[in-house]
């Protein structure tokens, strides 16, 4: 046994162990949440919990009550409404992109629209509060906070996902059928409207279902705009979602109290629903690929008129999306640019009223600390998992199962990860509030994000190339080390950077686990730290006097994200060129 061979075997085991760790995380989080939720049902019958409308977790003399019906209704209402809005605009924009003749339009549009995906939830809530809510207020709704406002904000948040997955499906169908339709003399748009769109229906529906899952797990943005009242949701009325309840009341509940278990139970309900959605989609996807021989119900009707309508709809939607992106970035930069100065970036906050003077340096450093930690803790298992699925797994079923598990991890709302980290790491393991506790939650959140991208990168490498290495007798790990990793370096680094951006914008997991309102520059991972999104959230809560600083903070965050996106995309492009010559 040579040294080389021993090392190869060792590293192969490391990869497998890390992959197993990643998957184990899901099982553990789910089981933990369930375990902490169950004691509630010893005191409160399930029916009362799910159907009751009175939520009074603290006894003020009238007894306690734990009914989450209004929260469930609120979550569903906001998500469905957001989905409807996003589907209308997103599908149109996707049509536009899929129909576009030149690849350049797509090449430019995708990263542009992806910028929306990079904007942190708390910035969405912030802009929603200042713009969307104001519009509603001007229209007569008191405070402007309502279900509709939250739905609009949420719709913009899920747009990038919808657009990219729908346009992918539409593009695939377009490549199958457009040419044939054109030989009949059918115009491009007519063909898109009457053949391509109906053909892609099933995949689009699946994307919509997945998007609902994402919408339901959103915490910060919705919480800031929805009004937070325990009432049955109405369009222009207030409501409350399960993530809001958890975020607002998590730290208050005394450990082991019924309130505590009730919050876990609410989180469990949400989590199980999302898991069910993911499982459903996965099953349908498998059935779908086997059902390629069925014909599409709707389609072939409408001819020229459908084509004309589709063109207008697609064009308008695309324009709307572009406007939304420009507005979001433009507004934040316009209002915040003047706050940014060297002092702002390098000084800690100061002033008798904190935040009025000084800067946000510890928040920037803290955010970087959280992010770096999260990416290390989450990225390594993610890449290991992707390597395992791409190169080690032999049975397709196992690969499918692992992908399903990763997708389920992705479906866990970040607030629930925060809840888990708070309960297990901060309290049970007594790590206390620190960077490590928060980063672990962030790591679980970021892991599927990086894993999916890594897998995609590995799949784009032609199998023939890897096989050539095996044919020479090289071990799997050797092939990975010498061929796969260098070849996919660009995509991997890009994926990690984007994952870091994703972690950078997360607020909910930090709330009670390691983010603080004030701290010095971070010195150790066992201490807490400030973070940009949390800082923004607290500034917004402080009100009008801190708005300038809030905008400045938002600006810094957006700038960081823009820069990272640009670097990531550019690096991926550059290294790709090298490899593909």
């Amino acid at each position, binding site marked *: 046994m040579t040294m080389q061979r021993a090392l190869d075997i060792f590293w192969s085991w490391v990869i497998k162990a890390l992959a197993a760790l990643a998957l184990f995380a899901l099982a553990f989080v789910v089981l933990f949440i369930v375990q902490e939720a169950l004691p509630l049902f010893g005191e409160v019958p399930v029916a009362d919990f799910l159907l009751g409308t009175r939520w009074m977790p603290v006894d003020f003399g009238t007894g306690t009550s734990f009914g989450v019906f209004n929260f469930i209704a609120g979550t569903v209402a906001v998500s469905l409404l957001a989905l409807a809005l996003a589907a209308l605009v997103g599908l149109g924009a996707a049509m536009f992109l899929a129909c576009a003749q030149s690849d350049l339009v797509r090449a430019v549009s995708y990263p542009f629209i992806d910028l929306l995906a990079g904007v942190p939830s708390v910035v969405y809530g912030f802009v929603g509060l200042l713009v969307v809510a104001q519009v509603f207020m001007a229209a007569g709704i008191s405070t402007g906070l309502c279900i509709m406002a939250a739905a609009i904000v949420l719709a913009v948040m899920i747009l990038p996902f919808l657009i990219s997955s729908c346009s992918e499906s539409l593009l695939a169908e377009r490549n199958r*059928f457009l*040419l044939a339709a054109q*030989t009949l003399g*059918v*115009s491009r748009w007519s063909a898109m409207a009457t053949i391509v769109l109906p053909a892609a229906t099933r995949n689009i529906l699946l994307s919509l279902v997945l998007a609902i899952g994402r919408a339901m797990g959103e915490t910060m943005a919705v919480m800031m705009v929805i009004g937070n009242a325990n009432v049955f949701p109405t369009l222009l009325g207030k409501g409350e979602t399960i993530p809001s309840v958890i975020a607002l009341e998590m730290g208050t509940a005394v450990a082991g109290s019924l309130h505590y278990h009730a919050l876990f139970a609410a989180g469990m309900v949400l989590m199980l629903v999302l898991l069910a959605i993911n499982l459903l989609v996965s099953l349908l996807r498998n059935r779908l690929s086997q059902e*390629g021989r069925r*014909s599409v119900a709707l*389609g072939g009707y409408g001819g020229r008129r459908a084509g004309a309508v589709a063109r207008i709809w697609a064009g308008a939607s695309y324009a709307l999306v572009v406007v939304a992106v420009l507005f979001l970035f433009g507004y934040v930069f316009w209002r915040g640019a003047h706050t940014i100065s060297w002092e702002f970036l390098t000084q800690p906050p100061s002033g008798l009223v904190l935040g009025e003077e000084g800067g946000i340096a510890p928040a920037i450093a803290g955010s970087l600390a959280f992010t770096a930690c999260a990416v290390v803790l989450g990225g390594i298992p993610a890449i290991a998992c992707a390597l395992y699925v791409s190169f080690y797994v032999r049975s397709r079923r196992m690969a499918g199962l692992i992908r399903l598990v990763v997708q389920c991890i992705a479906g866990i709302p970040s607030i629930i990860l925060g809840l888990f980290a708070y309960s297990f790491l901060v309290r049970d393991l007594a790590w206390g509030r620190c960077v490590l506790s928060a980063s672990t939650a962030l790591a679980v959140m970021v892991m599927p994000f990086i894993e999916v991208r890594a897998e995609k990168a590995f799949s784009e490498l032609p199998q023939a190339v890897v096989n050539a290495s095996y044919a020479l007798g090289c071990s799997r790990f050797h092939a990975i080390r010498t061929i796969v990793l260098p070849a996919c370096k660009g995509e991997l680094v890009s994926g990690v950077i984007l994952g870091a951006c994703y972690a950078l914008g997360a607020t909910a997991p930090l709330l009670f686990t390691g983010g603080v309102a004030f701290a010095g520059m971070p010195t150790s991972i066992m201490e807490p730290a400030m973070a940009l999104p949390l800082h923004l959230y607290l500034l917004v809560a402080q009100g009008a006097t801190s708005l300038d600083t809030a905008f400045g903070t938002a600006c810094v965050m957006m700038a960081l994200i823009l820069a990272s996106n640009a670097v990531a995309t550019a690096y991926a492009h550059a290294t790709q060129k090298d490899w593909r010559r």
Partner: protein
Amino acid sequence: MMQEQAAPAMQTVNLSVSYGRMRALEDVTISIPPQAITAIIGPSGCGKTTLLTCFNALIEEQPGVRVEGEVLLAGKSIGGMRRDLLRRRVGMVTQTPTPFPFSVYRNLTYGPRYYHMARKAQLDQLIREKLEMVGLYDEVRDDLHRSALALSGGQQQRLCIARALTVEPEVLLLDEPCSSLDVKATAKMEATLLDLKSTYTIIIVTHNIAQARRIADYALFLNGGRMVEMAPAKQLFEHPHEAPTRDFLSGAFG
């Protein structure tokens, strides 16, 4: 023989096509005789498909392509013609069968509906007529509403031909229509084409010399984007005029 007195169905005059700096077709001038099968043959990459897609202006759908010269349909240049009208008159069937993801019935009514060609009652008759023309009617008559995707490869390809015929073209272009079919399906396809040629002008691109020998009335040999030789099929295959043609037919390259 060669001297057909009838006006050519289609012609090209000094047709050149380039993709960027690459010349796909160079100065091609040909006449396609009507109501006959003209086979375009040549080695891989010689520009057969490019030439074919010039006939129905489908070449314009490709980005970055430049077309020079003229293409005439029944004597008139297609340059100024509305594309949908052009493609009604010049139909095309691609290499792999591409039935729309609808029922057989809806695949066939798609074109006529788009052009508001016929009312519902007439559609049924139209469909039957075209299906019989391609010899598919007996095979699908029991359930016209079943999915076209459930048909076999050969049946799908014949369906595509029938679909192309529903809009009443004058010319039918076929790009290696049998390349994804087995021997039996190929035989059926060739029989269909022979039946159709009395009504339509057929231009077929094929890499299968034997097939060209079997069904073509005229043959056109392309090489390196240039037209080398065009002649009645029998003449070209048995007594080719040009040296490259001879070399190609004898299997020296291709």
